């Protein structure tokens, strides 16, 4: 059991795995930035912005865990990056929901691009009502 926990992957293999994972996370960040420049209204930009918030961060946290090299170090690394991932999963939809709703209320969305507008009847209720 202890020999299994002390098993270490070679240094060069670990380096290449870590760098490839970090590079994929960086490319996801770049895709979000390109999407911010390319799309035209706020909900489309929100759609582009969620990629590095979830998948990029998960990939980079996996890279942190792999960089410890031994099996026990990887388990320890996973234990310390899981709170970061859980907090990000819990808070990213909150801000996206608030920003999207205010974008709808301010009229900064493309109305003709909507297929179904289930939020239309709430325009007649006061903003403080919910």
């Amino acid at each position, binding site marked *: 059991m202890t020999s299994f926990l002390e098993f270490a992957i070679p240094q060069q293999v670990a380096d290449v795995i*870590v760098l490839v994972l970090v590079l994929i996370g960086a490319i996801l960040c770049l895709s979000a930035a390109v999407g*911010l420049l390319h799309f035209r209204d706020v909900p489309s930009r929100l759609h582009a912005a969620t990629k590095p918030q979830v998948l990029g961060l998960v990939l*980079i946290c996996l890279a942190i865990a792999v960089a410890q090299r031994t099996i026990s170090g990887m388990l320890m690394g996973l234990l310390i*990056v899981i709170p970061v991932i859980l907090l990000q999963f819990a*808070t990213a939809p*909150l801000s996206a929901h608030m*920003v999207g709703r205010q974008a709808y209320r*301010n009229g900064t969305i493309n109305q003709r691009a909507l297929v179904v507008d289930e939020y239309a009847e709430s325009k007649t209720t006061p903003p403080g009502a919910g």
Partner: protein
Amino acid sequence: MNGILLIAIMVVFGVAAILSVVRIVRGPSILDRTVASDVLLTEVMCVLGADMAINGHTRNIPVMLIIAAVSVFGSIAVANYVARRDNPTP
């Protein structure tokens, strides 16, 4: 091989940050600027994590934890106060 990957990572992170800052400066409404600054903050978290993974230490974990917990308040505060109050009040 590793040097090429490192340089590619640095270039990609730098270009992504510059494009986000361009959207923050040019954004037509304040909600666009909020979304772009959220992306920039996520990139800061990713860079901190990449530093830990490449250099093989775990000293930046508290910073990542605090940013992940607190970054939501900026977007929520901005989105709460930009509502256009032109709905008919009862």
